[in-house]
């Protein structure tokens, strides 16, 4: 570390105060492009703590795609001119985040360049909104929908963004819970602070506790240094606990205690840490049922369920299926450089009659499949995935003029509970689950049982959201 350069930056101002006052990730680099200081926002964005990052080459901490190593930084040092570039980083949560980088030279009092100031603005939410054609209609959400049920959701969102109360978002898989949570955060007064997502079902209990609340050095084998935990990193922002219904009971107690006092002890720590974060939780399960079965604490349920938003499944969103089919077809045709103008009446009947247990995620995948297979100018029945063709159609049609009415009928038919679970996807999912139960979770044996390779089973588990 070049201590002369380092001190010339840090002695002039109280650098920590300046950095914490900026509502984006921000780092100071010396002329050797090593990190001198970074703010808490950047800690949350990258997953690296300031103490770990200090003295390390900045590029190794940002892990961006800004071309050959350090060239952009060196250019700013050489020319003295600030640059602003769009790119992405991969953080320690293994998530790729779209970033707007602004790199400016840092000069001392005699106008000599002593380092760089790098600002990283998370533009992932902005990008996801811009990628939708309905940008002007629901510019704060990135969620598409014209149905009455979705209009209710859109009306509720600004109200939820205005308050600071905990929110519980429920809805089936693929209904857009994550997008809604992030949109509410961005629209709230905490929008310029971190939004940190934790999947409560993805980690074992001890690891999850450490991820959420952090630990102190020496608290358990392998705890070789202090770890701040997501609650601390989300200071002034929002923490999004997805699949909250899968959170282990002992951790539920600790979360409840935090919600009561807004403070917690890190694992092995003897000093309470106070943080100011908003909690948004989401689950595809019925938490009331979970409470009745004794799998979820009732007091925590009431604590989280201050504000409740239920996202309707696609089969209950009248008219949205047709709307989304057209939207995704337009998007995917353009991406695949194809000139597909739409769907034939017959294929539309099949598509609108389907119940979409995987909701929008599944619908998009189906359209992507069709767009890839189709070599004509319109999607025909033979371009649809085979399992859709087994879906029974509504009664014989009277004529094309009544198509709209029939589409509505078929959507309603799609919501018939007796038909849900009888499509191929549901059957396949059931088959996979049964094989896993039979083999006590041994995936190699389950794959053998199903007559598949392990990679095929891996792909199927991903498709059905079982990973």
């Amino acid at each position: 570390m070049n201590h002369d350069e380092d001190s010339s930056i840090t002695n002039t101002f109280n650098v920590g105060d300046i950095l914490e006052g900026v509502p984006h990730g921000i780092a100071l680099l010396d002329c050797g492009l090593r990190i001198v200081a970074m703010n808490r926002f950047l800690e949350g964005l990258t997953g690296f703590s300031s103490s770990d990052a200090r003295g390390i080459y900045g590029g190794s901490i940002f892990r961006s795609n800004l071309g050959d190593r350090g060239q952009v930084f060196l250019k700013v040092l050489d020319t003295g001119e600030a640059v602003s570039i769009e790119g992405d980083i991969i953080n320690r949560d293994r998530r790729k985040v779209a970033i707007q980088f602004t790199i400016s030279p840092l000069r001392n009092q005699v106008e000599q360049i002593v380092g760089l100031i790098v600002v990283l603005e998370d533009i992932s939410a902005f990008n996801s909104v811009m990628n939708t054609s309905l940008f002007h209609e629901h510019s704060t959400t990135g969620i598409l929908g014209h149905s009455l049920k979705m209009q209710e959701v859109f009306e509720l969102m600004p109200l939820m963004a205005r308050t600071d109360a905990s929110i519980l978002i429920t809805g089936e898989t693929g209904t857009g819970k994550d997008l809604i949570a992030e949109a509410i955060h961005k629209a709230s007064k905490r929008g310029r602070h971190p939004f940190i997502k934790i999947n409560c079902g993805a980690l074992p209990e001890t690891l999850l506790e450490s991820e959420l609340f952090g630990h102190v050095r020496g608290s358990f084998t392998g705890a070789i240094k202090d770890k701040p935990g997501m609650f601390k990193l989300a200071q002034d922002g929002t923490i999004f606990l997805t699949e909250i219904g899968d959170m282990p009971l002992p951790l539920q107690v600790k979360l409840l205690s935090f919600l009561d006092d807004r403070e917690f002890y890190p694992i092995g720590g003897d000093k309470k840490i106070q943080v100011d974060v908003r909690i948004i939780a989401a689950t595809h399960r019925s938490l009331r049922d979970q409470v009745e079965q004794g799998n979820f604490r009732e007091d925590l349920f009431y604590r989280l369920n201050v504000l409740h938003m239920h996202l309707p499944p696609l089969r209950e969103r009248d008219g949205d299926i047709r709307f989304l089919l057209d939207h995704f077809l337009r998007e995917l045709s353009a991406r695949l450089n194809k000139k597909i103008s739409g769907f034939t009446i017959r294929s539309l009947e099949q598509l609108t009659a389907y119940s979409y247990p995987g909701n929008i995620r599944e619908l998009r995948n189906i359209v992507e499949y069709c767009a890839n297979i189709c070599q004509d100018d319109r999607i025909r029945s033979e371009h649809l995935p085979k399992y859709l063709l087994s879906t029974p159609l509504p009664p014989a049609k009277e004529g094309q003029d009544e198509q709209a009415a029939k589409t509505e009928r078929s959507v309603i038919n799609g919501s018939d509970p007796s038909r849900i679970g009888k499509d191929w996807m549901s059957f396949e999912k059931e088959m996979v689950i049964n094989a896993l139960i039979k083999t006590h979770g041994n995936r190699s044996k389950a794959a053998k049982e199903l007559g598949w390779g392990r990679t095929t089973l891996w792909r199927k588990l991903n498709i059905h959201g079982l990973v």
Partner: protein
Amino acid sequence: MGAHNALAETEYSRSCLIQFKGYCSMKILVTIHNNFVAQRFDLASEVLIAVHDGNRIVDEPRTIIMSRPSAEELCNLIIKEDVDTVICGGIEERYYKFLIWKKINVLDSVIGDYGPILELAGCRRLTSGTIIPFSLENGKMP
């Protein structure tokens, strides 16, 4: 994963890697750039493969130059080479999960000179997130 393109291989010697202690045979792949662990798995254009037999590195470590940076092709290479442990910088969740699924030990978010990092890996003391401060040589950057 798509089929990976033809890879150009070059023999590469790293004297600092020859001697270190280990416990059993292990094939290690490190994504590298200059003398450092590459910052990102998906952008790595060079990898080093070393086999550790319990006491030392067997033969010379090999470096493979990828025809183009690609996470998919790198995954294919890792499977094809029957690698036991992958050491890398930032890696996206889906590639991480895929490799774990294939029973490959992935040590990610590793920062530093790959020489001492390989030594640590050989001694089974390397963990994800290990940072070894750089000693910059010849103005080369990680």
